[in-house]
């Protein structure tokens, strides 16, 4: 199992978003097509579908490549990812018209208004969520694939 560690690292990293995506698509079909909820979710699926799995895979490859030097725990390594991913995601969302900056906050999907005071706690939530997902899920898959 010592061959192609970076390929295995990419697959282990991309595992979580790949598992979550079908659930999101199921939710999209139910909310948007069956229940006819007037929220343009389809525009927001592009970022998680196209970029997040590759981002997770590349980030895990970076962890495998740098772990011997940095000794950074995988949870902490994963928690750093939103610092890169959050601005990228916001940029993509803004260019796709699903994120609008207002005077008092941001509006997602033309529906969910998030005041600026909630942005910091929300970002901390994303950091915490990433920490747990990377520590317990990506770390587990890394162990199973023999790269941790």
């Amino acid at each position, binding site marked *: 199992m010592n061959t192609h560690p970076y390929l295995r690292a990419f697959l282990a990293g991309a595992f*979580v*978003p790949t598992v*979550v995506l079908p659930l*999101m698509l199921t939710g999209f079909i139910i909310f948007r097509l069956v229940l006819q909820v007037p929220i343009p*979710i389809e525009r*927001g699926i592009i*970022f*998680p579908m196209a970029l*997040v799995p590759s981002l997770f895979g590349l980030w895990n490859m970076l962890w495998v490549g740098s772990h011997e030097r940095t000794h950074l725990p995988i949870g902490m390594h994963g928690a750093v990812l*939103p610092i890169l*991913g*959050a601005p990228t*995601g916001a940029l993509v*969302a803004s260019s796709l018209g699903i994120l609008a900056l207002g005077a008092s906050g941001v509006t*997602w*999907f033309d529906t*969910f*208004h*998030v005041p600026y005071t*909630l942005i910091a*706690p*929300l970002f901390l*939530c*994303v950091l*915490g*969520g990433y*920490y*747990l*997902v990377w*520590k*317990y899920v990506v770390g587990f898959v890394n162990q199973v694939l023999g790269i941790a």
Partner: protein
Amino acid sequence: MNELGEDRIKKLLKQALPPMGEAELERDLWPDMLRRMDAAHEAPPWFDWALAAALAGFVAFVPMSIPVLLYYL
């Protein structure tokens, strides 16, 4: 190779390799093995539980954060 040569090689090998001495281990390795096996099934630390509870609480109190969190996963 004749017998004389074999004897010479045996002698040289014995000279080159140090005697094994006491073959017994200095200590029992099994408790360490058990500790490692227990560590593999260790429960998550309290900090992780607290973090998970805080995340669940935030999502429950601010449901509008759900699509944003899903967007980033």
